[in-house]
């Protein structure tokens, strides 16, 4: 799913203040990039401008780090034998 909303808002904003999207739009763009949902244009803007801009770079890195930590720390291990229990119950149904 690609969003056009940011692009539309960008062009509006560009007319208002030169070539810079505003801060909120940049933050939304960061989130789209992080989630792999950015359009080509948004991805390109991120690579050309945002990732070289210290405040955005820090926000992006923080979000990316938190995401990495969630992957590392929030995986509850499935109890041993649960898959077999489920298979047995399915076996009871089909008999």
């Amino acid at each position, binding site marked *: 799913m690609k969003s056009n909303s940011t692009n539309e808002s960008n062009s509006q904003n560009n007319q208002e203040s030169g070539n810079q999207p505003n801060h909120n739009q940049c933050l939304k763009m960061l989130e789209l990039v992080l989630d792999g949902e950015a359009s080509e244009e948004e991805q390109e803007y991120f690579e050309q401008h945002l990732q070289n801009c210290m405040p955005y770079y820090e926000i992006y890195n923080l979000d990316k780090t*938190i995401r990495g930590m*969630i992957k590392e720390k929030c995986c509850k291990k*499935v109890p041993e034998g649960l898959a077999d229990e489920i298979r047995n119950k399915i076996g009871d149904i089909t008999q």
Partner: protein
Amino acid sequence: MSEVQKRGYSLGKKEEIFDQEFLPHIDSMYNFAYRLTLDEDDSKDLVQDTFLKAYRFIDSFQQGTNAKAWLFRILKNSFINDFRKKSKEPAKVDYQEVETVYNSEDVDTPMTTDLRVETVQDMIGDEISNALNSLDVDFRTVIILCDLEGFKYDEMAKILDIPIGTVRSRLHRARNLLKEKLSEYAKKMGYK
């Protein structure tokens, strides 16, 4: 919305689909169930119920399509219908209200946080997990689906039965709340 087709799989085919397309997701499903219920026994029951339902309705599943999203949707519905009612959690906030507030202009204002990458990396204990668990269930759900399970916005919208715009706003809000929690932990831990 595509029509639900009944496929009439043979018993052998059902077992093949179950073993090859459903069961490999048991780890993710158990983790999702745990993040919803925050209780190991309830998670086990919820995962079992989900697989039994998936088997019962296997004829409406098209082989080769996104089994994980299909299973997560069943699990989420089972949680809402069967578990949330007897959940030990306190009453929930009104999300419609939260999202209305969020979607208003001023909530787009970026959150200012003094949380630093190094601080988060130093959280080697249960801080991240506790912070996530402390969020309201609908907020932790979107974080799990997106950040941990890697679902796309449109898949999350289908799993949760909400519009994509709501997925995005809820996710944004959830991440800010998580940062607030982590920031609180950081202060308690004595980080700057």
